[in-house]
């Protein structure tokens, strides 16, 4: 009797299934940058999340997929959701957000790409991208004439927690032969730091009359 029950149950389950080969092929990416054209005051951070790809599938025409790109900066943001399309359609959804952040203040980041499938009533593809925080951090300063080496511009010390890879490197002066914009004597730079690691060295640079490094 128990065997008969098992047989019936198996028949019902298998009776509703047809074999469908499906290969979801989605890729995702998140990236950030800062607006260097407004160096003073709170920085503008731009972020983008992309989910892009398709599924190869047979016998799937009665179902639909849609892509979602999620991006929240500082707790503000949400999903961009693509149209409901056939599972074999190509999905390319991007979510671009803008936020302002004060110097040395951590901005929380959540970035995610996912694709919903009505056939299984869940997300066929769902991935978090590797960002948790973003911060604009004080970094190098430059001062030609104070630390000259062979006529090059020499970058000064690096603030704690910022990009450190460029410390001690020298760069060529600009065409006018200076390393900063006269009459300023210093050139201060800020880094974009994500997850407390260097993401973009010297993301914002500006001239200033005095050394303001590591306030």
């Amino acid at each position, binding site marked *: 009797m128990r*065997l008969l029950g098992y047989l019936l149950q198996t028949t019902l389950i298998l009776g*509703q299934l047809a074999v469908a080969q499906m290969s*979801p092929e989605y890729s995702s990416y998140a990236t950030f940058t800062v*607006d260097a054209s407004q160096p003073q005051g709170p920085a503008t951070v731009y972020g983008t999340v992309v989910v*892009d790809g398709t599924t190869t599938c047979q016998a799937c025409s009665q179902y639909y997929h849609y892509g979602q790109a999620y991006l929240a900066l500082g707790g503000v943001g949400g999903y961009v959701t693509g149209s409901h399309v056939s599972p074999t359609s190509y999905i390319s959804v991007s979510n671009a957000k803008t936020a302002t952040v004060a110097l040395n203040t951590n901005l929380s980041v959540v970035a995610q790409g996912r694709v919903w499938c009505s056939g299984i009533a869940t997300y066929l593809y769902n991935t978090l991208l590797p960002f948790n925080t973003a911060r604009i951090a004080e970094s190098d300063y430059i001062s030609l004439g104070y630390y000259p080496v062979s006529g090059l511009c020499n970058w000064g010390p690096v603030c704690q927690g910022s990009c450190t890879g460029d410390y001690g490197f020298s760069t060529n002066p600009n065409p006018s032969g200076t390393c900063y914009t006269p009459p300023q004597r210093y050139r201060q730079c800020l880094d974009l730091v994500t997850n407390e690691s260097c993401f973009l060295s010297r993301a914002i640079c500006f001239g200033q009359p005095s050394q303001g490094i590591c306030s």
Partner: protein
Amino acid sequence: MTRVRTGILLVIVLGSCAPLALVQDHQHVATQAADIIDGAKTPDLIPDSAAWRLWLIAVTAEDSSKPERATRRQHAFLRMAGVVEDDMVIADFILANFKNDYASLINSYNNSMGGMPAKELRAKRDSLVQATQTSLLGALAPLSVKNLRNHITREKASMKVAREVQ
């Protein structure tokens, strides 16, 4: 033990009859971790074509709540990639063409309702990305080209890319 063996045998037999079923559903297999190349762990396994494609899509994306910042936004991403100021205008032109052509290609494929094989779509998509890459690298200053190549290689660490069926 005998019941277990019988059960396994029934599953195999009935499974072979499943395509004859009147009520059809389909079996989905969610994307497994093994199908995805995590650029944070193995960036070298991410093909350049996939990295360039994702970067091109991201850099041309617009924040719909701040359309007035579209150009500043794009230039901010280009500066981050090391593109010099004098190259911004030509880069804008090439990127605008990519954005339009990519959207057109996807629309053509989706509207073809299976008329265009997925393999053909991938070939056209990768060809468009390659053509855009060639245009950028040919039109930009040598310093921009060097910086851009290095930047996109570094950006692979922020990508998760599907291993595609060829």
